[in-house]
C-alpha cells in the first residue's frame, strides 16, 4: 500500500511540475528535446525521468498553447535538430508558475515541518 501511494504521489508531482521544468530549462537559450529531457534527468539526479511517450506530447502541448516555439536548425557538422525557445507569452507563464511554485513549496514545507516539530 505504502509503495503504490508513493508512486502515485510522485507521478502527480511530476505531471504538475513538468511544464515548469521545461520552461525553466529553455529560459536562457533554445534547446532540443533530447537535451531538455537529459538535463531534467541529470539535474534531478535521476529522480525525474520522462520517456518519449510522455515528454513530447508535453512539448507539443506547450507549443500549441503558444508558450514555446520549435524550429529546425542545422548546425555544421551536426545533424538537423528541432530547437525550442520561450515565446513572450511563455516567459510570462514561466514567471507566474515559478512564483506560484515557490509559494506552494514554502507552504508545503511549513506544514510538513510543523508536523515533524
Amino acid at each position, binding site marked *: 500500500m505504502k509503495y503504490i501511494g508513493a508512486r502515485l504521489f510522485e507521478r502527480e508531482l511530476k505531471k504538475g511540475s513538468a511544464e515548469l521544468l521545461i520552461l525553466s530549462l529553455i529560459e536562457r537559450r533554445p534547446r532540443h528535446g*533530447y537535451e531538455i*529531457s537529459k538535463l531534467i534527468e541529470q539535474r534531478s539526479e535521476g529522480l525525474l525521468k520522462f520517456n*518519449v*511517450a510522455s515528454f*513530447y506530447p508535453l512539448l*507539443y502541448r506547450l507549443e500549441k498553447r503558444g508558450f514555446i516555439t520549435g524550429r529546425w536548425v542545422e548546425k555544421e557538422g551536426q545533424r*538537423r*535538430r528541432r530547437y525550442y525557445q520561450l515565446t513572450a507569452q511563455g516567459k510570462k507563464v514561466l514567471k507566474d508558475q515559478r512564483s506560484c511554485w515557490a509559494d506552494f513549496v514554502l507552504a508545503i514545507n511549513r506544514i510538513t515541518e510543523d508536523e515533524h516539530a
Partner: protein
Amino acid sequence: MPDWSKEIHAALERLNLSVAQEASVADELTQHLEDRYDELRREGVDEAEAIRLVRSELGDGRLVAELKGILAPASESISPGNDKRERPFAGLGNDLRYAIRMLRLNPGFAAVAILSLALGIGANTAIFELLDAVLLRTLPVQAPQRLANIEEIHDDRIGSTVARQKNFSFALWQQIQQQQKGFSRTAAWSTERFDLGQGGEARYVDGMWVSGGFFHTLGIQPSTGRLLTESDDYRGCGIRAVVISYPFWQRAFGGRTDAVGSKLSLDGHPFEVVGVTPASFYGLEIGHNFDVAVPLCSEPAIRPEGSWTADTTTWWLDVIARLDDGWTLQKANAQLSSIAPGIFAATLPAGYDAAARKNYLRFSLKAESAATGVSELRAHYADPLRALLAISALVLLLACTNLANLMLARAGARQREIALRLALGASQRRLLRQLLTENILLAMVGATVGLTLAQILGRVLIAFIGNAEDPIFLPLYPDLRVLLFTIGIALLTCLFFGVAPALRAVRVDPGTVMKMNGRGIMAGRQHFLLRRGLIVSQVALSLVLLVAALLFIQTFRNLLTVNAGFRQDGVLVADFDFSPLHIRPSNRAEYKRKLLADVKSTPGVLSAAETTIVPLNGDGWNEFIDIPDRGLSRQLVYFSAVSSGYFQTLQIHMLAGRDLNDGDTATSPHVAIVNEQFAHAYFEDKNPIGKTFEIRQDRGKPNRIYRIVGIVGNTRYRDIHDVPTPLIFVSPYQTDDAGTDSTFVVRSEEDPASLIPSLKNTAARNSPQIVLTFSVLRTSVLQGLTRERLMATLSGVYGTLAAILAMVGVYGIMSYMVIRRSNEMGLRIALGAQRMSVLGIILREATGLVAGGLIAGTAIAIASARSARALLYGINPVDPMTLVVATTALLIIAMAASLLPAIRAASVNPIQVLREE
C-alpha cells in the same frame, strides 16, 4: 540498430496528420530514440537490452493516445481516396477550397456561369417573391390563420355593388353579427376614397370604413394614441374619430405626436385623429395600403343623401371574423348555412318584385380563410404570375443547358487531370463529389447574386403593375419561403447543369486518356450524344418561349388596336362634384345643363357631353327590362345616361334616328337610344325605332315606358376585353333627381390634359367649392391593359433572351463538335472529298438536330399555349401563323449559328491535320 522511424511512422499513421507534420514529428522522435540508444550502448548496455529499453520509451501505444488531442489531423487529401474508411462528408471544406481555387483560375468561365445563373435565378425569384406577396403571405395581425372572410353565395344581385366586389349590405352585416355563433368577433369594413381638399381639384386618400370591432378582431395594437373601438361606432355618431395608418402619419404629419388630437378634413368634414395603426399593418387588401379608417356610423353623416347604411340593395361591406375557440371553419360554415335563410328573409329589399324576392331568398353564406387577406390583385394577377414563373423557369432551364454544355467542355479540358487522379487511386465517387461541389458553389453564388437582383426586379415589376391612379403597395422582402425557393431552384439548377457532365467526366478510362496526347477521349462520335441532346432541348425550349412571346405580344397589340366602337384618344374625363353646394333635387338637372354649357364653351374644348358611365373603366349599371311587343320580360340590359353630344364627342356612329336633346326633360315622354347589338338581340336586326321597352320599378310602382328614338354603333362597355353587349342610352335629365355630380367627357384637338387648367377656372367661376377629378380616357384604358402589357413585355424580353441563348448554345456545341472532328474532316478532304460536301455533312447534322428540337418544341408550345388560353385575346392559342414565324425564326437563327463552324470544318487544311495525326 533498428529503424526507429518505421515504427514511429506506423504509430503516427493512426493520427492522420498532414504529410509535413508527420515527417517532422517522426524525425524528431527518431533522433531522440537514436540518441538514447547510442547513449545506452556507450554505457555498455548490450544491444538486445538497449533495444528493449528504447522501445519501452514509446510507452506501448501511449504516445499516440497522448498526441491525439494535441496534434490536429490534416483535412482529408483530395485526390487519392480510400472509400472504405471515408466518412461521407470528410474533406468537404477542402473540396470547397479547391472549388474556389478552380473558379479563380478560370475567372471568365466563372463570370459567365454565375451571371447566367444569377439572371435566371433572379428572374424566377423576383416573380416568386411577387407571387408570395400576393398569394401566400399571411396578414401581419394576431393569429391570422384564425381569421375568416364571410361571403355571400348569390346569383344576380339587383341593386348596386360598390367599391370592387363587396359582399353585404349594412342590414345583412347587422343580421350576421347578431346571429352567427362560430366566431368570437366579427367586423365589417369597406374601402372608400376621401377628399382631403376643400373644393377645387380633389386630393384623395385611400380610406376604409370599419365597424367598431375591426381592430379588436384583428388583434392590432396602436402605434400611438388609440384605435377605434365599439364605443366609437354607434348609430348617429356623426363626424367624430378617425385612425390613420403609419405611412400616412409619416407622410401627412411627419410622424409628429401632436397628430393625435388634431383635425383631418375628409370630404369636407372635420374628423379628430385618435390614433395611428402599427407600421406593419397595411389593411386587409393585399396590394393596397390605407390612409384613414373611419367608423361605419359616420357614413350617413358624410353621405346625407342616399346613404348606403340605410339601403338594403347596396352591397358595400365585407365581413372579417375570428373563429371562436373550439370552432373550425367547417363547423362555422355549417352554422352560417343554417342561419342564412333567416338572415336573407329578414333583410329582403322592399322594392323587389316576386322574381327578385325568390332569387334573393336563395342566397346563402359561407366563410373562407382570410389568413392571407383579400385581394382583387390576386384574382387578376395569380394566373399571369404563374405563367411568368413558368416562362422564367424555362429561361433558367435554357441557361442551364448552356451551362451544361460549358461544363462538358470544361470536363473535356480537365480530362487529363481527372484521369491522373483516378490513376493515383482516387475513387470515382470521391471525384464526382468534388466536381459537384464546384457546381453547387457556382449555383449558390449565382443564387445569392440572383436574390439581390430579384429585389430590384421585383420593385420594377410592382412599379409596372401599379399606376398613378391605382398605386400598388406590396412590401417585398425575401421571407423564409422565398429563401427556400431560391435555394431549391439553385440546387435543381445544379442538378440540371452539373450532374450529367460530372458523371461523364469521371467515367473515363485513365489509361486511354493518358495515352491520347492532347486529344480527349470525348472525341469519339458516341460521346456527342449528350451534346446532341442539348441542342435538341435548347431549340425546343427556345421555341416554346418564342411562341409564348409572340402570343402575348399579339394579345397586347390586339387589345391596343381593338375597335372599341369609339375614339379613345383626345378625350378628357372631368368629374364635377357639386354636393357641397347643397342644390335642391328639383334644380339639379338645370344646374347640370348649365355646367355642361360652361364646359362646352371653355376655350380648347371641341365638344363635351355628360355621362353616368365612363366607358371601359369598369363601371356598370344594369336593369331588368320588359319588351311587351316582342313578348320578352326580365331581360338584364346595361345602361348609360348620356347628354346630347355624347356620340359626337366619342365619335360613335349614329346609325339611324336622332340624338337625345334638350327637349328630353323630366316631364317629357321617356326616350332612349339603343345600340346595334340591342336591335340584333331583341328585334332580330329589324329597325327598333319607335318601339318601346319598359324598365321595372320598385314593387307597387308601374313600369316606366321608354320609346326608342335612335340606333348607334356597338361600343365596348365596361372592359376592353368584353364583346359588345346590348346597351341602352337614356337621358340623365329625365329624372326627378339628377344627382350631385356630373361626369363629362370632353374632346380637345390638343393634349386632353392641357384642358385641365381652363376647366378648373370654369368650375371655380361657378363655385370654388366644386370638387374636381380629372383623367385622360386613353390613359385609363391603357392602365386597364397593364396585365397584358406586363405579359407582353416580360415574355418578349424572355423570348429574345431565349433566342440569344439558343444561338450561343448551338454555336458553342457545333463549334466544339467540329473541332473534335477536324481530324475526320481533314482525312475526308485528303482522300478527295469536296469542301462543299464537308460543309454539307455538318449542316445536315445541324439541320437534323434543330428539326428534332423544333418538332419537340412545337408539341410543348401547343400544350402550354392551351393552358394559357385565358390570358390571350383575339388569338387562337394554336395559331399556325405564330408557330410558322417562331419555327422559321429559330431555324434561321440555329442555321446561322451552325454555319460558321461548318465553314471552319470545310476549310480545314488536310496537310496540317495529317501531320498532327
